[in-house]
């Protein structure tokens, strides 16, 4: 299933498949008046983020003039670079909290779209500094520069009743207050959970859903209403083109689902069966995380605050604005479908890298390095028969295997079950063929272990047991990554 195709089908659109989702949304802006109401430019913060990139793409497709406030112009994501190259986009280098150097670049009539925020594992202080102070300083700079409209992208979490250990939610509420009490006409937007291709939140959930047993914190009955990043970006650009609402709008997707159903749906969209759920008590885990956070924040897999999703309903209050867009929203299952695993072209011939690979795999296979003849053969085959196209995950798997003989062992155990026709196994077969025709090493593919008879039988059983262990480890370690990358396209 390809996102684009299904989308067109769902819309009953007469557009050819050559069109993209982005251009469709850009078109859906037109009836709303193009850049009517947009007297100046879109002044965007947080353009490099997940939502920001999509906003820039949408605005760029609608040919809206933009100014992007970015911290590191040298390392722009490629999507932004492309928009910049198209023209009509000004890049302003600067820090959100230090407005002095760039304040003068705000122009009268600009619509400020404030997306930049600290999320995830930032400390409480960081949350306050960036989300509260940053918003305040941006609002002041915008007012000083004569901006016409301030659009704050907040979060549905600001109205979670249970915000225990959740500095992000506190900070965002405070930021909302700054904007409401600030000098500029405003619109405050609270998106629900944002999904779509490679959405960070979705990746986190997909990791959980990909496990053989999926942990769900709490009873799994809280409801969420995920919104597709494309729909959110289109809605934000549309709101920027409207006169300031002076109110708070909650933006959610077309469906409300419980957390339990959500886990099943994520797996379903990746071609896997329903999830096996394990409900864990929320309160003790949250307390434990909160207790550990001061010390271990950088290494914890998630924060106590992030568990708020499991403790609260995260659905949007209906609004006339969202009702008017209902027909254009991506169905949830489409948003959850990973993009068809992208096939990468054959990797350029890279002798040193292949040499490392050959050594790691050989060490794994026979516990000894390859002979010179094998190494030469390995390189020759790769040079003569460049492999590919192959998927990103396969590429990652090989890079992983290259790390060490043990990593190779995990990748090998994983490949035979889940990618038997894949690239890694192909390389292992090649290596084996080189081994059995090597003038010196060929006996190593035939020589039985010392002992024979009953000992051999025990050894075989030992090998079987090791295989089971390695496979389990490989499934835990590599399975979620594989599922995440869109298994459907691999085979």
């Amino acid at each position, binding site marked *: 299933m390809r996102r684009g195709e299904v989308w067109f089908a769902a819309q009953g659109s007469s557009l050819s498949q050559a069109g993209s989702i982005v251009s469709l949304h850009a078109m859906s802006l037109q009836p709303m008046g193009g850049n009517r109401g947009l007297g100046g430019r879109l002044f965007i913060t947080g353009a490099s983020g997940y939502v920001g990139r999509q906003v820039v793409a949408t605005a760029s497709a609608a040919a809206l003039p933009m100014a992007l406030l970015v911290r590191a112009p040298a390392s722009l994501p490629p999507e932004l670079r492309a928009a910049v190259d198209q023209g009509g986009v000004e890049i302003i280098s600067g820090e959100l909290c230090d407005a002095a150097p760039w304040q003068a670049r705000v122009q009268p009539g600009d619509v400020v779209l404030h997306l930049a925020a600290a999320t995830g594992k930032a400390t409480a202080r960081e949350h306050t500094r960036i989300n509260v102070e940053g918003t305040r300083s941006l609002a002041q700079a915008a007012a000083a520069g004569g901006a016409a409209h301030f659009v704050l992208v907040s979060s549905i979490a600001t109205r979670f009743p249970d915000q225990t250990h959740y500095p992000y939610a506190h900070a965002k509420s405070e930021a909302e207050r700054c904007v409401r009490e600030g000098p500029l006409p405003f619109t405050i937007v609270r998106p629900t959970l944002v999904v779509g291709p490679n959405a960070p939140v979705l990746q986190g959930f997909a990791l959980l859903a990909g496990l053989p047993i999926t942990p769900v914190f709490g009873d799994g009955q809280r409801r969420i209403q995920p919104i597709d990043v494309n729909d959110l970006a289109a809605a934000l650009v549309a709101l920027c083109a409207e006169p300031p609402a002076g109110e708070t709008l909650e933006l959610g997707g077309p469906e409300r689902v419980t957390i339990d159903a959500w886990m099943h749906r994520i797996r379903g969209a990746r071609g896997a069966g329903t999830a096996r759920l394990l409900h864990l008590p929320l309160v003790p885990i949250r307390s434990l995380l909160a207790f550990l956070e001061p010390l271990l924040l950088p290494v914890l897999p998630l924060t106590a605050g992030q568990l708020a999703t499991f403790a609260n309903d995260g659905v949007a209050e209906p609004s006339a604005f969202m009702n008017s867009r209902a027909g254009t929203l991506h169905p949830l299952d489409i948003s959850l479908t990973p993009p068809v695993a992208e096939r990468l072209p054959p990797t350029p011939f890279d002798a040193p890298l292949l040499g490392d690979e050959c050594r790691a795999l050989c060490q*794994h296979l026979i516990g000894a390095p390859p002979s010179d003849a094998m190494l030469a053969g390995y390189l020759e085959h790769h040079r003569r028969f460049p492999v590919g196209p192959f998927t990103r995950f396969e590429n990652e798997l090989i890079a992983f295997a290259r790390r060490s003989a043990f990593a190779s062992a995990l990748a090998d155990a994983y*490949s*035979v079950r889940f990618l038997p026709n894949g690239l890694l196994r192909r390389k*292992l077969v090649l290596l*084996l063929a080189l081994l059995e*025709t*090597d003038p010196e090493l060929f006996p190593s593919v035939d020589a039985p272990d010392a002992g024979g008879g009953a000992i051999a039988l025990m050894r075989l059983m030992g*090998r079987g047991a090791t295989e089971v262990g390695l496979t389990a480890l490989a499934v835990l370690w590599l399975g979620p990554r594989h599922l995440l990358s869109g298994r459907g396209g691999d085979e």
Partner: protein
Amino acid sequence: MSGEAILVVGSGPSGVHFAATLLEKGYRVRMLDVGNARPEPIEPELSLDGLKRELPDPRGFFLGDDWEALVLNDSAGEYYGFPPGKQYVFTPAEPLGIRTQGFEPLFSHAAGGLAEAWTGGSYPFDDRDLADWMIDCDALAPYYGRVAERIGISGAVDDDLAQHFPVHAGIQPALELDRHSALLLERYAGVRDRWQRANARLGRSRVATLSQPLHGRQACHRSGRCQWGCPTDAFYTPSVTLRECRENERFEYLPDHYVTHLALTGSGAAAAAVARRQDGSEVRFEANRVVLAAGTLPSARIVLESIARSGDPAPELVGLMDNRQVLMPFVNLRLLGRPFDSESYQYHQLALGFDPGGARDYVHGLITTLTTALVHPVVQALPFSMRTSLGMFRNIHAALALLNLNFADDRRPENRVGLEPVGDGSHRMVIAYQPASDEAARMKRSLKSLRRLLLSLGCVAPPPMTRARPMGASVHYAGTFPMCEEGGDYTTDRDGRLRAFGNVWLADGSSFPSLPAKNLTFTLMANATRIAEEAF
């Protein structure tokens, strides 16, 4: 008896034994053949391991200069395990185009035909096998003997299995057994009664391999190179007989002649064979008598094309046969963890007959104790990670063996060979095959019993590893122009003479009216010899 040369098409087992017999009778023979020649054997004195150690480029020899014998995990299609040195035996397909359904045929344009890559199993048919034929065992026995004396067949004449093989001359003592095969026979001696109660017998194979020198050829010296091409001709291939024929001044061998069709006279007899050469030229060979021995499928094509070119619609030939083969790998528990012996004869040394009773039910099995085939295709087929699979393989290599079961086939109307036009006035061959409706049930019954019998020898055959090969894979094609007392144009008389043309004989498997489970090539050779002897 010189005079006009008899025109023979094809140098496979059928063609060369037909020609050799005519030459023995004093005829002149002109043989048209595509005739791709086999490369000269290298370092004949080296053993298989010797080749790995001593050759300057063992990888090139074993995997091929173009890596053509490398079997990667995504390689598609049936795996035959042909080494690079034997690739010349197989042409990709019929050069004039082919469309198949339910059938995956192999073709050869080699001097010597498909049997340049065969495994030498040579089993005479008995009276039950020949029930539908116009000849019986007694009539064929002298020709089996004559062929055996020409090519050299070794095997036992007095073991349990031998009762399935009618007596004929020219059998050499059996080859020296490899350790695994010897162990199986030894075990069998202890459970013989049980096997016999199940109507099964185990014994020595009959193979076209010399245990004693013959006509200037050496006996097998256990080099272990069979799969890569026997360097000394201890293992028989038809090119040996072709070479002998070519020493006869009455024999004219014309390679690089691909026969497209026979030109017909107004009365519908063959006037000439028309052949195409590689340079694109077309050559016409007038002949009063033409013998087609191009292999069942190519011969069918030549006949059909001849009719199509004469302006009549080409008929659809019904009754194509092939033996279904089932591969049943097994492990001999007593040999786990033992070293294996690479310096032994490589093809099957044991065979089994299983006879559950019904007319078509006799199952013929060949047991190959896998030793020196390429390892990587086997290891990757094990259901573990590569390292574990290799570790397992090292310890089960000596214990591994393969039972290759052949099931009989009969002529059924749904199995057809025809021609279809492809636009520019030329045609392609169309082959359609459906297994018999009771095939699956018959196979299942036999497999279950055989698995149990193997267990009685201390061997385990894991069911998931047992696999039926696609039809066409056994390369035992027959039945397109069956011999019968009276029949239509597209049948032959007892001597393989095609009724439609009158002066064309089919000396290959085309005229077989049924296909027993036993490998057919020995009978192809004997039958071709019989036709040459009796009809000419």
